């Protein structure tokens, strides 16, 4: 028996979570009546959500700002390509190609996580470029040219589109639920302590390296899953695109605009990003410039992002990680 307890999740947050659950079901049924275009756009949205949630886990909660996580997007896609070439069914390779990246990220963590903040960010970017060069040495990739997942053409286009869509939906849901559960447990407090003051975190017993490594590996797998899903829907693998810095720019944009270090932030950021892409995507360079301007406006005027605005309105952060103590003995 204990005397004290943590306040239960507020009614409003429960409603949001229930709404998200219903949205998940509706999205799950959507291929039955949605157009191919809508299904494609939503697939991309789910991929963006995976990227944003994952990068937020790393930067927003553990304080590890990386501009090189395209390394894992590219590696995930490359692994999938290689697995399919070796005979693995493509839809299995979407998951397996992402999961296998854990085996690469785990040892990698031993090097990059010893670095300080600025060094880590740069080292990750250098690593991404290095890994891209190495992948381009693989004769199968044909250098700049790349390769296509031609196996996928054997499937009926609608069946293929809908399967990838449903996989993206489920994986995005899984990434959200897993990171939410993780952050609500012991690891959540520990990552935030490390972000705020790594030395002090160690002094109260947090195994700083172990915790950072877990988060790092999870973020790598998240990005790799985004990479396999993206390859499955785009079909063509080109090293410069798969390992391109644009992935980092997208993640930064979604997380900063949505709200760094919040649960809802990256999801809202991804929705906004996708919306902008649908409306302005045809404007090429102007589109990128527009993104830059929006990001700058946010950085200057809304430093805590959309979730920051909502929190001000509501007087508290919706779906917060914050744990409040019940003021009375129970």
């Amino acid at each position: 028996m204990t005397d004290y307890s943590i306040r239960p999740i507020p009614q409003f947050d429960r409603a949001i979570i229930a709404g998200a659950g219903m949205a998940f079901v509706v999205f799950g049924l959507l291929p039955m009546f949605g157009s191919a275009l809508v299904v494609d756009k939503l697939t991309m949205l789910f991929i963006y959500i995976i990227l944003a949630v994952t990068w937020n886990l790393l930067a927003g909660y553990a304080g590890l700002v990386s501009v090189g996580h395209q390394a894992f997007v590219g590696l995930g896609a490359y692994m999938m390509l290689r697995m399919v070439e070796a005979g693995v069914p493509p839809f299995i390779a979407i998951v397996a190609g992402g999961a296998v990246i854990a085996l690469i990220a785990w040892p990698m963590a031993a090097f990059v996580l010893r670095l300080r903040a600025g060094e880590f960010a740069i080292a990750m970017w250098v690593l991404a470029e290095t890994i891209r060069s190495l992948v381009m040495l693989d004769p199968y990739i044909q250098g700049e040219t790349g390769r296509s997942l031609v196996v996928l053409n054997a499937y009926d286009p609608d069946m293929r589109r809908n399967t990838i869509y449903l996989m993206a939906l489920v994986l995005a849901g899984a990434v959200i639920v897993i990171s939410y559960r993780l952050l609500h447990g012991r690891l959540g407090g520990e990552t935030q302590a490390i972000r705020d003051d790594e030395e002090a975190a160690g002094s109260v017993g947090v195994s700083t390296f172990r915790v950072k490594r877990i988060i790092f590996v999870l973020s790598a797998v998240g990005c790799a899953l985004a990479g396999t899903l993206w390859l499955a829907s785009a079909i063509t693998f080109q090293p410069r695109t798969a390992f391109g810095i644009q992935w980092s720019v997208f993640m930064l944009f979604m997380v900063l605009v949505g709200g760094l270090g919040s649960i809802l932030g990256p999801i809202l950021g991804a929705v906004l990003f996708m919306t902008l892409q649908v409306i302005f995507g045809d404007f090429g360079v102007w589109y990128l410039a527009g993104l830059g301007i929006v990001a700058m406006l946010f950085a200057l005027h809304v430093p805590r992002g959309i979730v920051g605005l909502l929190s001000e309105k509501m007087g508290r952060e919706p779906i917060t990680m914050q744990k409040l103590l019940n003021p009375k003995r129970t």
Partner: protein
Amino acid sequence: MNSPDLQSHLVARRLRKSYGSLKALDDVSFHVGKGEAVGIVGPNGAGKTTLFGALAGSFPVSGGQITFAGDDITHDPAETRCAMGIARTYQVPRPFLGMTVFENVMVAARAGGGLSAAPATDHAAKILEQTGLFALANTPAAALGLLDRKRLEVARALATSPDIILLDEIGGGLTEAELVQLIALIQSLKDNGMTIVWIEHILHALIKVIDRLVCMAEGRVLAAGDPNAVMQNADVRRAYLGSTPE
């Protein structure tokens, strides 16, 4: 001074720590017995805080050896030492600024104290009561003033359920009444068997709880032993009292 007895809980032998050419710890030996309360005094820059950092594993030492309950912990990281039962506070508080007071203490109770969620919640709440922070439990740590941040330092260290607590100038700035409360708190920890090492400039507070006093200056131990005898020591009077007349 006698060589540290085998009963000693935490023993440091010939510690050295240099920052460039500055010898912050210059051959410092230190020990504290189980359940003992030791005070540390010394002028600014004497190396007191650096000694705490070395004992708690906040940084590697340049030389020397540290044992705890007979085990060599010289190369163990801070989190291992914390799990073994050594907790420190920071002289300049280092709260987790993005978290609430309660969450700060909770991390310590779960990570350092090894408690699961429900018992950790209970433990954290009781420590907040004990340290006078309960009313501020759900306040963001960033909103605390200096005195409450110092209280949070003590609360967070206590939450790890330590065998030995290293307290670094937690009494400065308190009113006389608050000081009395603080002394009562530390005395009760001692009565419950906790080992205490307390760096404090407020001698009259220190004297009330400690069994033994260590005086440091310029990275060395000038004198150690019975508090009154140490304060009468000629070197101590010259180095410590001479530089900070009270």
